[in-house]
C-alpha cells in the first residue's frame, strides 16, 4: 500500500503558488522531502495533515483522503512542526501526556506512552522541569516525542535538525533512522540539506518552487558508480602530492583512466583486477594506502542535471553549516 499519494495537488495563496500540480506516490519507509526554503515543503505537510485545504487536486495518506477524512488521518499521523510550539510553563511529561490524550489515548495509557517516548528520544530527569528552560536540542526532542506519543503509523517531521549543533544533528538523524527501522513507523522528513537525508532515507522526493523535481529511492540515487576513490600517503620524495601523482602516472600506464580530485584519485573501475593494480602500484612506489573505496553517486548530483542547474545555482547563498551539503552546491 502506498503511504502518500498526491494527484495534481496544488495550493495557491493569492498570487503565490506554494505547491503546483504535484503528483507523487510514496512507499512506506523513511522518506526525505528535499527542497530549498520556500519550496513548498511545509505547505505540503500541512495539506497532508488535512489542515490546509488544497486549491485543486487531491491527496491521500495511509489510504485516507486528507480533505474528507482529515481527523482520521491526524489520528494515525504525528506531526513535528518546524517552529517552536511548546508552552514554557508546562513540563515535557505533562505536555506529552496531554498530546497523547488529544490523540484519543486514555489518561493512564497516555502517561505510559509519554514516559516511553520521552525515554526513546533521550530525555530523562529534565522532563519534569518546565520547558521554558530547555535548550534547542531538548525542545526538538520533546517535539519529536509528542509526534510519537500516540504510536502513529506515520510521522511528518518538518526540519527536525533545524538549529541543532553537529552532535545534536547526528543524534536526531540516528533517531529518525530508528523510528523507521526499529519502531516500524514511516517517516516523512523535510530538509534543505541533502547530505543528512542521504544518510537516513530510503527514498527521496525533491521539490523546487512547489513542483516535483524527482522522486526515487535513495539506493537508486546513491547507487555505486564505476569509480574507485584512492588516497595514498607518503612517497619516495616524502611529499604526499608527489606520491599521488606518481601513482596516477603508474596507473595510467597500466591503461586505466585516472583523474585527480583534490588529494584523491578517481580511478576507473573495470573489474576486480583494478583493485590489484592499485594495490601493486602503491606497493611498488612505497606508498601507504589510506583509502580505497567505491564511489557512490551523491544526491547532490541530482541538482547538476542541466534542467535544474539554473534553479539550483540560485540557491547557493543558502546559509548552511557545511557548504558541501547545501542544496545545489556540487561536490568539489
Amino acid at each position: 500500500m502506498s503511504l502518500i499519494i498526491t494527484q495534481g495537488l496544488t495550493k495557491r495563496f493569492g498570487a503565490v503558488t506554494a505547491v503546483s500540480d504535484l503528483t507523487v506516490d510514496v512507499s512506506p519507509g523513511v522518506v526525505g522531502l528535499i527542497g530549498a526554503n520556500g519550496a513548498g515543503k511545509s505547505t505540503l505537510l500541512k495539506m497532508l495533515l488535512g489542515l490546509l485545504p488544497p486549491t485543486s487536486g487531491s491527496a491521500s495518506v495511509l489510504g485516507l483522503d486528507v480533505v474528507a477524512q482529515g481527523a482520521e488521518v491526524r489520528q494515525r499521523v504525528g506531526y513535528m512542526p518546524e517552529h517552536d510550539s511548546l508552552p514554557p510553563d508546562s513540563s515535557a511529561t505533562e505536555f506529552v501526556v496531554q498530546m497523547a490524550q488529544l490523540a484519543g489515548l486514555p489518561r493512564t495509557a497516555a502517561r505510559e506512552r509519554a514516559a516511553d517516548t520521552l525515554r526513546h528520544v533521550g530525555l530523562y530527569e529534565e522532563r519534569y522541569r518546565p520547558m521554558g528552560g530547555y535548550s534547542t536540542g531538548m525542545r526538538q526532542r520533546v517535539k519529536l516525542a509528542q509526534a510519537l506519543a500516540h504510536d502513529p503509523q506515520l510521522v511528518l517531521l518538518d526540519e527536525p535538525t533545524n538549529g541543532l549543533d553537529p552532535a545534536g544533528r547526528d543524534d536526531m538523524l540516528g533517531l529518525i533512522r530508528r523510528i523507521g527501522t526499529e519502531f516500524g513507523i514511516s517517516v516523512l522528513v523535510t530538509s534543505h540539506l541533502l547530505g543528512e537525508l542521504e544518510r537516513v532515507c530510503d527514498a527521496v522526493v525533491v521539490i523546487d518552487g512547489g513542483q516535483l523535481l524527482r522522486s526515487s529511492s535513495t539506493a537508486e540515487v546513491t547507487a555505486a558508480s564505476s569509480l574507485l576513490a584512492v588516497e595514498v600517503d607518503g612517497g619516495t620524495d616524502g611529499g604526499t602530492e608527489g606520491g599521488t601523482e606518481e601513482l596516477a602516472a603508474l596507473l595510467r600506464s597500466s591503461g586505466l583512466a585516472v583523474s585527480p580530485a583534490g588529494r584523491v584519485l578517481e580511478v576507473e573501475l573495470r573489474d576486480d583486477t583494478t583493485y590489484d593494480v592499485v594495490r601493486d602500484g602503491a606497493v611498488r612506489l612505497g606508498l601507504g594506502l589510506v583509502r580505497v573505496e567505491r564511489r557512490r553517486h551523491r544526491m547532490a548530483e541530482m541538482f547538476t542535471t542541466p534542467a535544474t542547474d539554473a534553479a539550483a545555482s540560485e540557491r547557493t547563498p543558502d546559509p548552511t553549516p557545511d557548504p558541501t551539503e547545501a542544496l545545489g552546491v556540487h561536490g568539489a
Partner: protein
Amino acid sequence: MSTAPEHAGSAVTSEQGVIHDIGYRHYDGPRLGRGAIRRAMFLEGLRGAYGLGRSARSKVVPALLLAAMCLPALILVIVASVTGASRLPLNYTAYPLNLQVLVAIFVAAQAPVLVSRDLRFRVVSLYFSRPMERIDYVLARWAGLTGAVLLLLALPLTILLAGALLSQMPLGEQVGDYLRALGQAALLAVLLSGIALVIAAVTPRRGLGVAAIITVLLVLSGVQATVESIAVNEGEGTLGGYSRLLSPSTLVAAVSDDVLGGGTGVGPPDAIGTSVEILVYLAAVAACYGLLVLRYRKVSVS
C-alpha cells in the same frame, strides 16, 4: 542507527543508574473519539486555570484569589455561629456580587493563561495536528474557564452552606437559596468566561490581555453603576432597572432573580423586562461564541 533488534535487552547507562531498554513498544489499546478528546482538553484547561500541571509560579495567583474568595465566607460563618443568628448575615446570591472585583481579577488573570499562551507559543498548531476541530478547542477552553470560575464561586457558597447547617439554620430554606446561588454562579461563569476569552484570544501577549479584560469588566460595571444611580436619583426606576443589562454581573443577577427566583426585584420590571434581559444574556453568550469561532477559524496552523 542500528537496524537490528540487538538493541532489545541491552542496557543504557545514565547518571541515575541503569535503564533497561526494552525497545519500542507499539500501542494497541483503545483510541477514544472526539468526545474524549474534548474532555481531555477541557480538563487540561480547568486544571491549567488553577496552575495544576504547570509551573509552581502559575499556581500562585489562582490560589491567592481562591483563598481571598473563601475568607469572607469563613468569617461570615464564624460570626453567624458565634452570635447564634438564625440566618446568614449575607444572602447566598448576594455573595458573588459583593466580591465581583475578585471574580473579575480571576477571569482577567486566567483567561490569557488558557488561550493567549496557546497562541503566543503556537501550541495551537500542535493541538490542531490532532483529531480535534477548531470548534472543539473553542468549546473546551470555554468550558474549562467556566468550570474554573464556577469553582471559584461555588467553594465559598458551599462554605456558607456548611456553616449555616452546622449552626442549625433551617435546612430547606438554606439549600434552596444555595442552589439558586449556584445557578446564578453558573450563568455568571459562562458569560464572564466568554467575554474574557474573546479578549484574550485577540491579545497574544498575556499582560496586555489581563489589562484589557479587567478594564472592560470594570468599565462596564462602573458605567452600569453610574447610569443606575443617576436614573434612581431622577426617579426613573424603569431606566434604572434596564441599566442592569449593561454589566455582566448585574445582568446575570437580574436574570437569575427573575428565572431562578429570589424576589429581590432587581432588574427591568415586569414580563417584558424579564424577556429582554434573558434575550440580552443569550445574545451576549452567542456573540462571544461567534467571535471565538471566527477568531479561531483564522488562526494559522503554522
